């Protein structure tokens, strides 16, 4: 989960490291995910969210499709 200068740099990094390209998206989308994903960590009653609850968060920020499916 890294920040690159450009999509072209992701492609070059993938070729150099032999790590396949996964999903490329905007920092703005990741920011929305980070806010929602971690907003409960400083609560005494924290518990790990269920798969369904985590999937809802991904959906809310527009990260949908096979790559983002937590099941299957």
């Amino acid at each position, binding site marked *: 989960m890294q920040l690159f200068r450009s999509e072209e740099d992701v492609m070059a990094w993938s070729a150099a490291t032999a790590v396949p390209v996964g999903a490329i998206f905007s920092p703005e989308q990741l920011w929305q995910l980070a806010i929602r994903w971690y907003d409960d960590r400083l609560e005494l009653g924290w518990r790990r969210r269920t798969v369904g609850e985590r999937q809802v968060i991904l959906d809310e920020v527009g990260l949908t499709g096979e*790559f983002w499916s937590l099941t299957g």
Partner: protein
Amino acid sequence: MTAEDAAVRLFVYEQARQGRIPAPIDIAREFSVTPRAAGETLQRLERDHDALVLLPGSPYVWLADPFSALPTDYPVTSATGRWHGACIWDAMGIAALVGASCEIPTACPQTGVGLRVTTRDHELLDAPGVVHFAVPSRRWWESIGFT
């Protein structure tokens, strides 16, 4: 999760937010238990609740997501502290939890070109570039270090 374990988990996170992930001996002092008992609590929080990630084979906290006890390529800085996230997602998570004006001074893994993300409270002020996730979401927890 017992009330005692929940209190230890929250203590770890409150300390992490202040810039220092505690060792078992710190938890032992805070809760008047032995360091061994504190270590067992941390191991239980990892094993039974996925609440922490410990350094393999140890009672020491590696990740209290999004906070990393080890330095990384994703530091987060503000006027009040300095933290590290294991990845850009975690670094943004720290900035969101800290809530103040933060910077994430990092660099493109391929080119080394500096990239600086700036945030304020729940607002992303500036974020160059693109994000890349190599691992599909259902496999994120198979090897959390690589993910």
